[in-house]
């Protein structure tokens, strides 16, 4: 997914002044490809395994490590939270996590970041809120403790975000944009968060309340994530760490992440063997530190916002990125394996040489084409994609000749004679390799196409017995069939724009 960063904002979060070019290089070599730089805006591609990078804070945190400005586990101000969460009923979205964060000096960049983060996390990691969703609230507008409960939709009532009047859960789902978009995620009942004086915070995963919304004056935040699987801790960690990077103090809430690093076993010798590199033991801490991962000699220590680091191979990759992909030499191992080509492809290549020698141009048309082209003559048994975006590419070809005719039709302004051929797979209905050729000019004749086939048959050692054949693609009495395929004069009704006689053949290349 694409994330937009403001260079000045990222700069302010970096520990040292960094040139734009240096930052872009580092982003590329970290695995967040820079798609576009437009004045002050950097657009990067964030991979789906790194939801922690969907904010300028997350990116700057990673870059502070990768550029060597701040190695190892990130350090934040932390304490237990004053907020208590009481769980009354919790069956609809059973996985829950919370945190609070206080003392933020709000500005426009933070608001923008929170919005981008929430949107991107919802669509990607949250699978459009189905798997996970997040809520961010102004803590000062809430009177804890907060109760988590469930209610029938028509019993819920509050002013949803962006509205001016109180609505029932049912109304919210029917009338608001967000409600309509995500109504499929709820049935008759919905989860509701309510504070001690009855203020509704939200109805996850649909919408928060207007009463508790974050604005330009918000200093202290309450954060939640609800979901259908483990992972809500990660989402709360991601959002909370981003705000902590802006100077806030984290407050743990149960259930929720503790922000103490996970210990995961990591065998660094095995990793070096797999990567094919040698790292000095004293360098190991530094390299993992560049990835904001700690190291105690046997375990890697992983910050809670990184849910993607669990197994040996995950740390091996971190080590490789920290080592630098540009530092790998590119070794070519000795091997006594001998390459062997596919005889079918060799045969096709020999055939191409023969066809070119006979004056034919090789063309390529689409395997996936339109029913319109293939079924001009009432073809049936075509293999069709059930969900093609366009009719033009929806059907697997069962013949090569229609593609050649199509080619001739779009090239009527080129010089004649036109002699073309194609070797390719068709589905009839099984996948098989074929060759087809076509000749178009004012005197294209039986004798010419038959001469080509005779020459081809000699080279291929085909002993073919031709008999007259009736086929809707050819003029009656002007086509012949053998065990390998057929040839003939194309039916005038199929010539369309070509306006010249066309003869053609199509032969199977596999076994009979």
């Amino acid at each position, binding site marked *: 997914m694409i994330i937009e960063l403001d260079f000045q904002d990222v700069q302010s979060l970096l520990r040292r002044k960094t040139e734009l070019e240096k930052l872009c290089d580092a982003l*590329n*070599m970290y*695995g967040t*490809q820079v798609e576009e730089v437009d004045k002050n805006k950097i657009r990067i591609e964030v*991979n789906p395994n790194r939801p922690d990078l969907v904010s300028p804070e997350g990116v700057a945190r990673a870059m502070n490590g990768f550029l060597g400005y701040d190695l190892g586990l990130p350090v934040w101000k932390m304490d237990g939270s004053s907020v208590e969460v009481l769980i009354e009923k919790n069956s609809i979205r059973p996985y829950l996590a919370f945190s609070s964060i206080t003392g933020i000096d709000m500005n426009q960049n933070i608001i923008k970041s929170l919005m981008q983060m929430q949107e991107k996390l919802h669509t990607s990691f949250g*699978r459009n809120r189905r*798997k996970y969703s997040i809520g961010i609230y102004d803590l000062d507008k809430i009177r804890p403790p907060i109760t988590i409960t469930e209610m029938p939709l028509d019993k819920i009532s509050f002013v949803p975000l962006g509205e001016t009047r109180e609505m029932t859960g049912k109304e919210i789902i029917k009338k608001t944009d967000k409600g309509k978009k995500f109504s499929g995620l709820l049935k008759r009942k919905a989860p509701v968060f309510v504070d001690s004086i009855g203020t509704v915070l939200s109805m996850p995963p649909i919408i928060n309340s207007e009463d508790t919304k974050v604005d330009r004056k918000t200093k202290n935040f309450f954060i939640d994530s609800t979901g259908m699987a483990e992972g809500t801790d990660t989402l709360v960690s991601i959002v909370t760490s981003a705000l902590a990077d802006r100077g806030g103090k984290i407050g743990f809430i149960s259930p929720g992440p503790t922000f103490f690093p996970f210990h995961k076993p990591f065998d660094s010798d095995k990793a070096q063997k*797999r*990567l*094919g*590199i040698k790292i000095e033991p004293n360098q190991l801490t530094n390299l993992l530190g560049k990835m904001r991962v700690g190291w105690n000699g046997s375990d890697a220590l992983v910050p809670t916002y990184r849910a993607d680091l669990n*197994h040996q*191979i*995950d740390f*091996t*990759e971190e080590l490789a*990125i920290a080592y630098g*992909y*540009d530092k*790998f*030499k*590119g*070794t*070519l*191992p000795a*091997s006594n*394996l*001998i*390459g*062997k*080509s596919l005889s*079918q*492809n060799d045969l096709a*290549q020999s055939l*191409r040489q023969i066809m070119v020698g006979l004056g034919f*141009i*090789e*063309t*390529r*048309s*689409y*395997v*996936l084409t339109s029913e319109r082209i293939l079924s001009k003559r009432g073809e049936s048994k075509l*293999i*069709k*994609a*059930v*969900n*093609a*975006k*366009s009719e033009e*590419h929806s059907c697997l070809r069962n013949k090569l000749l229609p593609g050649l005719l199509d*080619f001739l039709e779009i*090239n009527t302004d*080129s*010089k004649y004679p036109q*002699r073309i051929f194609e070797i390719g*797979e068709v589905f009839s209905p099984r*996948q098989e390799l074929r060759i087809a050729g076509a000749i178009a000019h004012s005197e294209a004749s039986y004798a010419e196409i038959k001469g080509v086939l005779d020459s081809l048959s000699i080279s291929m050692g085909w002993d073919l017995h031709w008999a007259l054949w009736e086929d809707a693609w050819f003029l009656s009495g002007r086509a012949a069939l053998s065990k390998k395929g057929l040839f003939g004069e194309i039916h005038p009704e199929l010539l369309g*724009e070509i306006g010249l006689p066309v003869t053609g053949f199509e032969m199977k290349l596999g076994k009979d």
Partner: protein
Amino acid sequence: MHPLEAKILRFLKRKKRFSTQELAQALGIKPEAATRMSYSLSRKGLVSMDKQVTTKLVRTKEGKEVMKKGLPEKRLMKILPEKLDNLPAELKATGLQWAIKHKWVKLSKGKVEPIKQLNKLGWTKEELALKSLEGDEEAIKLLKRRKWVEQVKKTEFFVEATKRGKEIKIKDGITALTPKLIASGKWKQAEFTPFAPTDPGIEQLPGRIHPLTEMIEKVRKIFLGMGFTESAGSMIESSFWNFDALFVPQDHPAREMQDTFYLSGKSRLPKQISEKVKAIHKQNWGSWDPNQAMKRVLRTHVTALSAKEIYENEPPAKIFSIGKIFRNETLDYKHLAELYQIDGLVFDEKVTFDDLFGYLKQFFLELGFDKIRIRPAYFPYTEPSVEIDVYFPEKKDWLELGGAGMFRPEVVEPLTGKDCPVLAWGLGLERITMLYYGINDIRKLYKSELEFLRTRRIMK
């Protein structure tokens, strides 16, 4: 003097000024020959030649298409009312904006509705002008803007005998050595007209190999030379091999209908191995539905075949395959619905990540791309993963040509029963071909212009 030169000069001696076209007609020779011979005479100072350029309006390929099928906006009117999303791309691209401009249709709630009736529209200005190739300036301007007509320059040459040309005694030369002249020995006395080496020869319409085939052959040669064995598989694949065996979770966006072509019918699951794949999915993603795995797809990568290869082979093995893959995309100059992918894998206890860099660098070096950059990337089935960029001095930019990595243990272990290193890559053949030959529109490679295939250069 060439006999044709003599013929022309004799004609011009008696008459006055002619266009080469008229000359050709009067003398019954080809117009090109008349022009060529007149040139040659003018170089000898025997005729004078002058050029006149006139312009003429002609229909372009698109213009001819419109003549045949009708105005896009009128064709659009035929299928209305219709949802905006359901409109055929071609009509949406051009027809719609003009129909709106003319106030024939309106857009409301994502639906295009007619305001006017098709049979009451009559002939539009453009239609009339396109048919007659005449009309007021505005109509012609419009046709040009819509790229349906273009001005074509026509060059005519007029020739006239000079004073010297009128006076000179004309003598026929011999143009061709014949078996008869050789046998009789008469060639010894004959006067041969000299060649005109700057004149074009007789045009040839060559038979040629397609650029993609040329590139496929280069790639095959390189991998065979590096000791890889060639393989091929079916374009129709089960979701199991295309996704599940590669550890792509069943709710992964790539598996959605908008990205992947699905076919009706179901594939059978390979029994033993699907149990192992099921276990690894359940352990990591919580759930696994065999019905999802049985769905048939047009393979989205040749990597589906690579998974089968490591299941069927014992290490060490080096295998490559060049095959078609499919993406449910709308076509433009950068995207096709089907592409060739060059897939390779090295399945070997001793192979390392550094070796992957070695193979990739060697491959591109042999193709003549010596400046490449390998960056970290992400794919569900490899870890570590990389993307390969090649530097293009013309564009002063890096262009991505493919992805690679080491198969994850979650892929390798269920298929082979052990965690053996596997290097794997998938590179885009069309992109490499375009860069190699300097082709800028990917659509040029399929349903190409014949002229392009006949005259393209074999290297950039």
